[in-house]
Structures are given as structure tokens and as C-alpha cells.
């Protein structure tokens, strides 16, 4: 009986706070009358909101109390979900492969954007999800990759495919450069320094006008080619349309870009999956679990962290080069902290360390706001609300279980209760 009373009091207090908040914000509306500004009261709207808060809070508390009695419930859900995930992955891949045949050009453009974030998410997942190093400046490597490609292509006249590995390697070099000074830092401190690193890169790009053209950015970045075939508006010799005797169409390039980013993202995924089953990936996860124990086993914590930074940065750089070639124009505007935050949100929302989770989260995070575009101003509100609900229901991300990298028998799925989140 006492248990039922506490949620009631709690809901009442929440309703009181809601009243205090909504009475001035929603309850009073200013308008323009004939003699200046008028004030209209809307008591019904306030009442409705307060009632909604009261009921919602009560339901939440009762539901939580219920759940505490059945502690096994979340784990069971996770496991049944993971059993289904065995089919979700291939199904998603099949959809991704045939998508250009199914949707129009605008949707495919969105698909390219989502896949770019999937790739970034998979890259950051190595650093944050596997090695447990909280990196808030991942956009730095994205920027390094993009500018490396743009500048090298401009200076040397080399094409996209020759510059791509160079852009990745340069980003990896910066990953190591960032890694060195921050090796001793953990958790929040690491996050602050990586955040600063991301800003440093952006500000350097903004101010080193002689190299980067500053805020005006770099335009005329060469587009990627298919084995030397260009995608242009005409169908002259050496173009894709001319070679295959097709009518030239801008859609062809979008489809091509779509498959390029799909291939690059799948490469990231493949390397990560391979590495996870090997000593390097296993030791990244061990580092996330317990750094001191790693040291006691003779593992060089320094090089292990640096490899994680370097591999993560490499794929960030590749994604950056793709971004540059897709846009044809880059400026420091594109590499703000917002990007780092979005990619990190994708990794955290997906469930740290889960490859499939990153895909689902990228679709939700990038595709979601686009889908809700008809709702105009309310879409970010709905989106924010959805994220809050997510974090309440599944605080460890969509897929919060860990699949062992190796097993003698059938292999068990490890629930989030045991897995460390990683704090640097």
C-alpha cells in the first residue's frame, strides 16, 4: 500500500512543476490588438498538459515498480532481439543493395547521407564502442580526410581512388598525433581534450587561408570515376553514359555514389568484424573492461590505444574524402562539433560496440528528422522526445548485448549487466 502511495505523491509533484512551467509558457499568449499587445489566457491547454504529465509520471512509476519485481525481463528482450538480429543484418543489406531500383533520386540522396553516417558510426565504434575511449572530436578526422582529398587532388591532379587511401592514412596519422598527448587521460578528461582537438582542426582550417581558402572553402573537387568513366551531363567519349550508350542522367551519378559509400561502409564493417575476432580487437575490448589488468598481462596499453585511434581515424578520413567528392565543395562549416555529437549519438544510441545497432541508430538519427519533415517545426521536438524515451527504456542503446568474439561451444550472448561501458 505504501508503495502505491509514493508514485501518487511523485506524480502530483511532477504535475505541480508542470503547472509552474506551462502556466506562463503555454497559458499566456501575446497577440497584437488594436491598442497594442494583448494577453490571452489559455487555462484549458495548461490543464491538459498538467494532466498529461500527472498521468504519464504515474504510469512511468507504476511501470518501473512492476519491472523491479521481474529483474530478468530486460535481458530476455535483448536476447530475443539478438536472435532476430541474425536475420535483420542480411535483410538490411539486401534492402541496401536493391534500394536504387526502388526509390527516387531524392530518397537515394538521403540514403547516401545515412550510409555516410553509418560509416562514420562504424569508424567511431572502434574507438568508443570497442576500446572504450570517449572521443568527442571525431569530426577532426572527417575534416582531415575531406581536406586531404580536396587539396591533394587539386595539387596533383590525381583522381578520387588514388587519393582515397592517402586521405585515410593522413587521418590515421592525425589519430596517432591526437592519441599521444591524451594517452594518460581517461573518461571526462579524454572527452574534453578530444573535443578541443576537433575544434582546433576546424579553426586551423578556417584561418589558414593560404592553404584551405579559409571560410570560402574549396570548390571544384573532382568527382569519382568508375574505372576512368566520368559521370557528366553529356555523353561524350570517356563518360559513363557514352560508354554504355545510355541517355546521360544526373541520377546515374547518385546511384554510383550510393554504391561507392555502401562499399566503403561495408569495408569498414568487414575490417571491424575481422579485427574483433582477432587479438587486436579482443585487446581493445579488454582495454575497455580493465586497463590495469591489461597492463598486468604484458599488454602495451599505449600502442593498443594508438591503434584504436588510428584505425578509427582512418575510416573517418575515408568517409571525409567521400564527403568531399560527393559535395564537390567543402568548407569548415561542415565540420562543426555538431557532427561529432551526431556520430557519437549514433554509436551510443545503437548500443556501444554493436555494428547492427549503429546502422539502426544512423537510420533513426539521420533518416528520422527527414521523414518528419512534413511536420515542420515540431519534428525536432518529436525527435528529441523519441531520444529521451529511448534512453529511459534502453539506456545502454538499442542493442546492448555483446556477442563473444570466440566460443568453444554454441556461444552465449552477454547481457549489458556484465559489459563495462568504457570510460576512457
Amino acid at each position: 500500500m505504501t508503495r502505491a502511495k509514493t508514485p501518487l505523491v511523485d506524480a502530483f509533484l511532477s504535475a505541480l512543476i508542470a503547472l509552474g512551467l506551462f502556466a506562463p509558457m503555454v497559458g499566456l499568449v501575446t497577440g497584437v490588438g488594436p491598442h497594442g499587445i494583448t494577453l490571452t489566457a489559455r487555462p484549458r491547454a495548461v490543464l491538459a498538459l498538467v494532466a498529461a504529465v500527472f498521468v504519464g509520471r504515474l504510469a512511468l512509476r507504476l511501470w518501473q515498480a512492476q519491472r523491479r519485481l521481474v529483474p530478468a525481463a530486460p535481458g530476455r528482450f535483448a536476447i530475443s532481439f539478438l536472435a532476430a538480429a541474425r536475420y535483420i543484418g542480411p535483410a538490411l543489406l539486401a534492402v541496401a543493395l536493391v534500394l536504387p531500383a526502388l526509390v527516387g533520386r531524392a530518397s537515394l540522396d538521403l540514403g547516401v547521407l545515412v550510409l555516410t553516417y553509418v560509416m562514420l558510426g562504424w569508424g567511431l565504434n572502434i574507438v568508443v564502442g570497442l576500446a572504450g575511449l570517449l572521443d568527442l572530436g571525431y569530426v577532426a578526422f572527417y575534416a582531415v580526410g575531406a581536406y586531404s582529398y580536396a587539396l591533394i587532388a587539386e595539387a596533383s591532379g590525381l583522381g578520387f581512388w588514388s587519393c582515397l587511401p592517402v586521405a585515410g592514412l593522413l587521418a590515421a596519422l592525425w589519430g596517432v598525433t591526437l592519441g599521444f598527448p591524451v594517452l594518460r587521460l581517461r573518461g571526462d578528461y579524454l572527452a574534453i581534450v578530444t573535443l578541443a582537438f576537433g575544434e582546433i582542426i576546424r579553426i586551423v582550417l578556417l584561418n589558414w587561408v593560404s592553404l584551405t581558402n579559409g571560410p570560402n572553402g574549396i570548390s571544384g573537387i573532382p568527382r569519382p570515376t568508375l574505372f576512368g568513366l566520368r559521370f557528366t551531363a553529356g555523353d561524350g567519349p570517356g563518360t559513363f553514359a557514352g560508354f554504355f550508350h545510355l541517355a546521360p542522367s544526373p541520377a546515374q551519378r547518385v546511384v554510383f555514389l550510393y554504391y561507392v559509400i555502401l562499399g566503403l561502409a561495408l569495408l569498414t564493417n568487414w575490417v571491424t568484424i575481422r579485427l574483433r575476432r582477432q587479438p587486436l580487437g579482443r585487446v581493445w575490448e579488454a582495454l575497455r573492461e580493465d586497463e590495469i589488468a591489461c597492463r598486468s598481462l604484458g599488454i602495451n596499453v599505449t600502442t593498443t590505444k594508438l591503434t584504436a585511434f588510428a584505425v578509427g581515424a582512418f575510416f573517418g578520413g575515408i568517409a571525409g574524402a567521400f564527403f568531399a567528392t560527393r559535395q564537390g565543395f567543402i568548407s569548415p562549416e561542415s565540420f562543426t562539433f555538431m557532427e561529432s555529437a551526431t556520430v557519437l549519438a549514433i554509436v551510443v544510441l545503437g548500443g556501444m560496440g554493436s555494428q547492427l545497432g549503429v546502422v539502426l541508430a544512423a537510420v533513426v538519427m539521420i533518416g528520422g528528422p527527414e521523414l518528419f519533415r512534413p511536420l515542420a517545426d515540431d519534428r525536432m521536438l518529436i525527435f528529441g522526445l523519441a531520444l529521451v524515451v529511448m534512453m529511459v527504456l534502453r539506456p545502454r542503446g538499442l542493442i546492448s548485448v555483446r556477442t563473444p568474439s570466440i566460443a568453444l561451444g554454441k556461444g552465449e550472448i552477454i547481457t549489458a549487466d556484465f559489459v563495462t561501458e568504457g570510460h576512457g
Partner: protein
Amino acid sequence: MNPPAPAPLLEVVDLTMRFGGLKAIDQLSFVARRGEITAVIGPNGAGKTTAFNCITGFYRPSSGALRLTHADGRAFQLERLPGHRIARRAGVARTFQNIRLFAGMTVLENLLVAQHAPLMAATGFGVLGVLGLGGYAAAERRAIAKARAWLERIDLMARADAPAGALPYGAQRRLEIARAMCTDPVLLCLDEPAAGLNPRESEELNTLLLRIRDDGCSLLLIEHDMGVVMRISDHIIVLDHGRKISDGTPAEVRADPHVIAAYLGEGDEGIEQETESVA
């Protein structure tokens, strides 16, 4: 009597560790011999764990020397090596007072992480492994075989795929010892391995430790459980307030008036009665 052995396995000479004004260890010297179980005991705060952390490279001693000599004559100055080299090159493995397993990884994965160095070399430092080239598959088979051997020895074969964090406490202790042994150490340092074990588990631990010794790995252990210490140690060092107050066989230490005084205050009761309260 003994064949002319080279230098002893571990020589600690005038080890001093200061934390600001506090001398946690003061001019400590002792020797741990090859093929023996050496125990370090002493009241709480005597400096046992600090000494351990110096030997295993987690602290850098303020002064003194730590010389480790392998059976083949290779010698290491532990106080000069970085932490991870002490485990990998010098062959000193350790466990922790509060167990430090990789809780979210399986039992098998824990044992494979311990064999990181040989496995990593087999993957061509990551590159060949990703491409599926090189001798990685064979190296992994060897590593799994070794892990299996240890799993059988510590009786955890059935739980090989379970997360380490889900094991009962006693099993976690055994797994931590097996994980340390998977690094092929010459000296295994155990920080209170019997803490929190019930009498039966404690007995199993004794058997395990004796077997590790008989297989050629020397042991250095800190322990409060006198039942374990007195039964399996070949040699005991007693610390109090950072200094060595006694050094000898279990029987000698047991009879040493300094030891009795340190544990009981002044008095002449047997140390065994006292140990109950200490443990």
C-alpha cells in the same frame, strides 16, 4: 647440498617506497628462490601490497634494486622496466586483491587476451590477420589448446563461454590465476588469493598453487589466511611498518618472538591462535 645455482630468481635489495612523507617500505631486502613458494605476510598496512606493486611495475620504487634472474641466466632490473615489459619480457605475472577480470568477456576470451603477445605476432601485427593470411589460425589453435588445458585444471571447462563476471567468486579467483599463468610467467605474484574463499575453495587453491610450483613456476604471495600460508609456503617474509621483521621457513617464523609481538602486541601465545582473528 644444492647444485650450484645461478643468482636467485628474485633479489630485492634495499627497496624503499615513499609516498610524500610516508615511508611505506623502508630498506626492504629479501630473496625469492626458484621453484619455491615465498609468502609475504604482515599486519594490515605493513607495506605488502606496495612491495608487490613495486615488483610488478605498478609503482616505481623511490630507491633500491629489484633483480630478476631467469634459469638461463638472463637478468632483468625490474625497477627500470616499463610495466608491461615486466609481464611480457621478464615473466612476472600478477593477480589483484580485488579481482580484475574482463567481466564482460567470456572465460575463454580472458585466457586468450592473456596470450596477446604471441597471438599478435602471428597476425603480423593486425594486418595479415585481417586479410586471413599468415600463421594466425595455427597460433589461435595453440592458444585455445592452452586455454583449454587451464580451464580443465581450474575446473571451469563447462563455463568457458560464460561471461567472467557471471562466475561465482571462487571461480573468478581461479580464473584470474589461470589468466596470469597464460602469460607463461617465471614468477607468479598473488595478492591475497584466498581472500573471501570458503574452506573447501581454499583447500582447492592450495592444491592449484602447489601444482603450479611443481610445474616450474615460482610463486610470491601475500596472504592473510595463515592456513594457506603455513601449509604451502616454503619461505616466509614478515613485514611490519614497511620493514622486514622476520624471514625463514614457516616453522622458524612461527616461533619468532618479533612476529608474535607484531601480531599480538607483546606476548607469548602461539601465532596460530592469533591467525584466526587476522584472517
